[in-house]
């Protein structure tokens, strides 16, 4: 394709990406290094149906003057990134100096919200990404092996977890794992412990979230692999069979290498998705046991007093996290295709 043709072809997409992806990210970056002005607080008397009390309010006139001088807020540099709710450098330094050993240091680190959330986010990602891709692959192989007549309905049922709205799917499971629900009661019976509750135990909550994550995202891997399986060269498979290759050998030496680019692509997408895990935490009411970076953004924006700068800083850190995680794959892709 000529460069000029390519440019004209690509221009609308590039404009849309610039407007709706790049510019908002820049705005989030700017937001994260600014904070609201110092509030001028004055003491006043408030009267309600329950009597009068001394209280404080914001002096709006004084705050308005500050705001007019600098509409962007006060510039705080990287202060928000460094504070206790985010990277907490000074708290880590303190923990390092005061800790009695590695275990104690780790315990102190886990007391900082950002790192606690990071541990859950990474654990979730590390388990859900390969498990959901593996499950999707196995289902795709199974569906590909059954007679064509049954494939339609089976494909439909395999896709159900993805068709059901995530919040609803999670809510149904949430009721099932309740200690009075079918799964919760079954677990109690299996463990022979009537006080066992999936929702009250941090470990079990994490396992539940990981199982849910795998279940709900496996259909994506299944669809992609199923499409990929249709393109596996039949003559290679047939000649392998003539040579006496078992089903396992054919999968291992022909199918898997053929599907490798798809697998890399799915790892990319899934790592990004799982690093931003959010919905299961909300729908399983799991915030007391598991928090993720995305959940922090939600919680900062959902309170009665919104913390925009804090949410912006967490967003930037999330983007940075995704870039770090994807960098090995991105570098490899760049080497492969960039030189051509």
């Amino acid at each position, binding site marked *: 394709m000529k460069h000029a043709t390519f440019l004209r072809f690509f221009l609308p997409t590039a404009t849309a990406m610039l407007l709706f992806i790049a510019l908002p990210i820049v705005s989030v970056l700017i937001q994260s290094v600014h*904070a*609201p*002005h*110092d*509030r001028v*607080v*004055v*003491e*006043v*008397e*408030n*009267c*309600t*149906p*329950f*009597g009068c*009390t*001394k*209280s*404080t*309010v*914001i002096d*709006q006139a004084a*705050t*308005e003057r500050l705001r007019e001088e600098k509409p962007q807020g*006060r510039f705080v540099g990287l202060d*928000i990134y460094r*504070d*206790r*709710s985010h990277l907490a450098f000074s708290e880590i330094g303190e923990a390092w100096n005061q800790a009695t050993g590695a275990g104690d240091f780790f315990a102190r680190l886990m*007391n900082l*919200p950002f790192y606690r959330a990071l541990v859950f986010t990474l654990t979730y990602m590390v388990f859900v990404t390969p498990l959901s891709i593996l499950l999707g692959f196995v289902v795709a192989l199974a569906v590909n092996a059954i007679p064509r007549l049954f494939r339609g309905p089976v494909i439909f049922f395999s896709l159900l977890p993805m068709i059901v709205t995530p919040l609803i799917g999670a809510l149904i499971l949430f009721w099932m794992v*309740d*200690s009075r629900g079918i799964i919760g009661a079954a677990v109690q019976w299996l463990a022979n412990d009537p*006080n066992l*509750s999936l*929702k*009250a135990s*941090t470990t079990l909550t994490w396992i539940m979230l990981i199982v849910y994550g795998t279940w709900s995202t496996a259909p994506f891997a299944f669809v992609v692999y199923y499409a990929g399986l249709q393109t596996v060269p039949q003559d290679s498979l047939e000649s392998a069979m003539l040579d006496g290759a078992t089903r396992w050998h054919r999968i291992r030496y022909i199918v898997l290498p053929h599907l490798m680019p798809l697998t890399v692509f799915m790892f990319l997408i899934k790592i990004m998705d799982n690093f931003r895990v959010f919905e299961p935490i909300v729908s*399983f*009411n*799991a*915030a*007391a*046991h598991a928090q993720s970076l995305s959940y922090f953004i939600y*919680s900062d924006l*959902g*309170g*009665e*007093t*919104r*913390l925009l*700068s*804090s949410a912006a800083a967490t967003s930037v850190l999330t983007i940075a996290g995704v870039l770090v995680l994807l960098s090995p794959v991105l570098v490899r892709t760049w080497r492969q295709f960039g030189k051509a």
Partner: protein
Amino acid sequence: MMRTMKTALTLAALLAAGTAQAQVNCGVTSGRVNIVGNEFPAIKTVAANAAKCQTGTLTVKSNLTSTHQRINLPGMQGNPAEYTAAIIATSSIVALMNENVIRPLDALVAADGKDIPKNQLITIDGKVMAVAFMANAQHLVYRKDILSQVGAEPPKTYEDMIRIGKQIRERGILKHPIGGAYKSGWALGEEFVNMYTGYGADFFKPGTAEVAINNPRGIAALNTMKALTELMHPDFLTHDNNETNAEWKSGNLAMMNMWGSRTGVLMVKEGNDPKVAENTMVGAPMTVGGGKIPATTLWWDGWTVARNISDEDARATFLALKNGISPSILNDETMGQAVWMIAGYKPAPVNQGVMQTMAMGAKPYPMLPYMGLLHTALGEGIAPFLQGRKDAETTLADIEKAYTTAAKEKGFLK
């Protein structure tokens, strides 16, 4: 017989529909009114009565939703504001005050609202900022039959509640006799605010935004909460008001601290287990630690008028909402919906809990610009203590740190 009943029903429905659309002279004929607010029966009544002022040139719209707090501020920041009025409560007015999106009502009250009783006017720094129409609070709800089975009077203190709860468990009547909205987040924060208020300490150093909850009373409040949770269903950190009420309806609970506005539905026989509904009683809120003030907070619900709208629309909004809370809205159906602050209100038995809360001198929820930040920090920070992962002092210290970080970002602290 059946036919006559049907005719009567149809007629009644027609009449009801007729009255709902009947126009009322509200003293204003043109303008734009758009109300945003929470969704529960009492607020629906107010909005519906405000809508009766509608004429060809006066439009009255409303958007009532449980997520009102996410939309009211953005909806009032534009100029002109999309919402001309917000129905808010003790804590949520603060978010609107902080951003300066609601207007003082003194001039409107002087011109058109002299008949609004003084005690309904919420004044902040001498300016009327809202008009309250109902009161709400959390108070004791108990099962008469279960308490009499163990020979106990309704608890007056949280210590009593824990003692009776243990008796109920020991007698094998219920495994988890106590209920409460302890869901991590706003609900859990609110329970701490209640308990800490009962111990009679201040949340902040007076006149400043410096938090002061890490003290012996804060620790005592946490320990009482933990003692309560040991008698609750193990999933308590996932139970909000709705879940707790569902547990109550299933007959799994004997005592709980519940909102007055949410108790009525537990006492009606239709749709409920009659044994549970008939034995559900409301009582005064409990005290704790030998304190005199109940361990609960008083709330009012009221309406405000947006700043960024024309004076004409502001007057139309004021008059429409004034009609929405006029004594004429009280009838058999609306009377029990809330503890109304409207002349002519007669409390129903279900409202006794809130009435007694007021009579006992409960404190209102603190209306401070930075209270919301502390509430969020409490809601996120208490769970590790109740799970046994942190001791009380570290928990409170960490909550103070989380609050201070947020308050610095918001410019309340240097």
